[in-house]
């Protein structure tokens, strides 16, 4: 069962309550997602650290061949 955008946002939101989160269905098939997460917590972290933190919030849903999240493009940054 693929995940919906609001489920993805809710998981990220739980870990980053203050973040500006934009989840987009990139091809309209409910299976390829893009998420932009802008949060103060990212300041001072490099991109690998930032994205690791977002992946961690998704609690294993990206993992493995049976992962519910087939494709999620991530953009992370601290607010300007």
């Amino acid at each position, binding site marked *: 069962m693929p995940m919906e955008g609001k489920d993805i946002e809710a998981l990220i939101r739980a870990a980053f309550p203050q973040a500006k989160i934009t989840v987009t269905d990139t091809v309209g098939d409910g299976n390829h997602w893009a998420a932009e997460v802008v949060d103060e917590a990212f300041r001072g972290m490099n*991109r*690998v650290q930032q*994205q*690791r933190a977002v*992946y961690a919030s*998704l609690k*294993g849903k*990206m*993992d*493995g061949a049976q*992962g519910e999240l087939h*494709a999620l*493009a*991530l*953009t992370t940054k601290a607010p300007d």
Partner: protein
Amino acid sequence: MSALDDIRETIEKNDVVLYMKGTKMMPQCGFSSRVAGVLNYMGVEFTDVNVLADPEIRQGIKEFSDWPTIPQLYVKGEFVGGCDIITEMTLSGELDTLFETKGVAFDKAAADKIREANA
């Protein structure tokens, strides 16, 4: 040899390694294809490891880097990032800087062309 030892040895022995789905000649996933395409276009010599060919490596590389997705790029033994990070770094020029700093040969004019095409 365990999968983690295998990975450690591969990234130590090769300057640039891309763990990907499929091969650089025949990628089997859009994200892997994008990163392999950038490296090919920039004329970077790199070793490709097809994780679909070995379930232990496929799982092992995720544990090794604490990173749940494929592709994963390593330069001089160091994890650089996945598809989104490599794309951003290509467009910002940070990837050029990384290759220059690490002494990896690449075609600067080709990298500039990618940036022009995506400006």
